[in-house]
């Protein structure tokens, strides 16, 4: 994707090189109340989605895990326990506000032995080839400017046989659910954002960015095109969220 190409920022059309800055602005704004808003918006269900992701990652002691767009460290904290002292977890996020919140949270919980933090762009991962046994990206891919570039970067840093897990909002599988979801996303979420985080625009972007994200099958095909094999996905909560999984051959 060339710098002068256009892409989407929610429903707004922006130049590709401007998107990252706009997304950064959103996450600088929401970082402090990110966890609270996740619980409020999803009714706590986001914890179940992430628990399922952890299970599907099937991480074992001694392994190396990269959690991209790891933000406030939900997944990284669990991976840290699973890989044990012989393993390693890298919590990466392009946004330093989110990374600071995540680092502080993990340190407050005494998790630091096998975790390191990196401010990194998913499109240009600053790690050697064939480094990680597992890469996860939870609710981050839809914010990436060039998703194909990010998928290629993830493929490069994965070890052969390593797995990529993408947890992301997707397309509800029933029309009734889709209508209810639209009402909830575009009417209620901005109000909740205003009341709790004093920022309705960021949560309007959240709802819009979800609608612009590829659907389940399209994302699976993008993973195949990037070079992943055994690509599959699991719909959760009626397709509101999907977990995609692929293996580096």
């Amino acid at each position, binding site marked *: 994707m060339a710098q002068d190409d256009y892409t989407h920022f929610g429903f707004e059309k922006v130049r590709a090189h401007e998107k990252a800055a706009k997304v950064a602005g959103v996450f600088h704004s929401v970082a402090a109340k990110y966890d609270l808003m996740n619980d409020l918006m999803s009714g706590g*269900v986001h914890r*179940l989605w992430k628990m*399922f992701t952890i*299970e599907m990652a*099937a991480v074992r002691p001694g392994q190396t895990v990269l959690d991209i767009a790891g933000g406030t460290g939900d997944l990284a904290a669990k991976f840290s326990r699973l890989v044990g002292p012989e393993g390693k977890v890298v919590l990466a996020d392009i946004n330093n506000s989110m990374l600071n919140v995540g680092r502080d949270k993990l340190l407050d919980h005494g998790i630091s032995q096998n975790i390191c933090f990196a401010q990194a762009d998913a499109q240009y991962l600053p790690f050697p080839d064939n480094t990680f046994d597992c890469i996860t990206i939870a609710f981050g891919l839809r914010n990436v400017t060039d998703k194909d570039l990010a998928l290629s970067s993830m493929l490069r840093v994965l070890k052969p046989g390593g797995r990529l897990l993408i947890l992301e909002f997707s397309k509800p599988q029933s029309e009734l659910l889709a209508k209810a979801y639209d009402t909830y996303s575009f009417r209620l979420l901005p109000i909740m954002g205003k009341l709790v985080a004093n920022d309705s625009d960021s949560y309007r972007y959240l709802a819009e960015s979800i609608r612009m994200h590829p659907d389940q099958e399209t994302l699976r095909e993008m993973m195949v095109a990037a070079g992943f094999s055994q690509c599959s996905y699991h*719909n*959760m*909560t*009626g397709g509101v969220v999907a977990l995609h999984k692929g293996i580096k051959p």
Partner: protein
Amino acid sequence: MKVDPALLTAIIAAANKAIATALAYDPGTQAALRPLHGKVLLINCTAPELSLFAVIENDGIRLCSYYEPVPNCSLTGSATALLGLLWRDNHSLADSGVMVSGEPSLLSNIQQLLKRLDIDWRQPITDVLGETAAYPLTRILSSQGLWLHERARRLPDWLADLLTEELQLLPSAEELALFYQDVNDLRTDTERLQARLDQLRKTRTINGTSS
């Protein structure tokens, strides 16, 4: 029909909490689990579609919906067939709709664990509600639990029948008794034969000396 992974995750999380709490009140079973550390039982439900792995870890059991290493033993069947195993009076797998594969010895070990299960239910209720409320509640639960307990009590017998009659991997008690009887008879006959040979040898020696 596939179960929503989020819903299944919630059910599994609740079940894991319940199992951990129950085992905390049964140290004997916890100790018995340690030799089985690392063993995995897969319960593959075909309707609704879901897979449940029971992973034995140190002195506990963890349920999960996905596990990468190949399980040691698998049970496959519909939910009604799998649950029906607990309620069936007939302990055979024939016409039960459930298939087993892998290490039957793990089933045998689980059978022993179920026999040993002895959870002090009054203690956790007392911890939460206090002695005054716990006593009548425990009495009610005890009476309701008797029916469930009876079904659970039959499960080891079902497993024993499965291993001896259905899969014929282990001899039954009657077969063993007959075998031991045959061995005793053989030993007696051998001793009798040896005595007869000794007698004949002695007679031959005497006759050889006389002539």
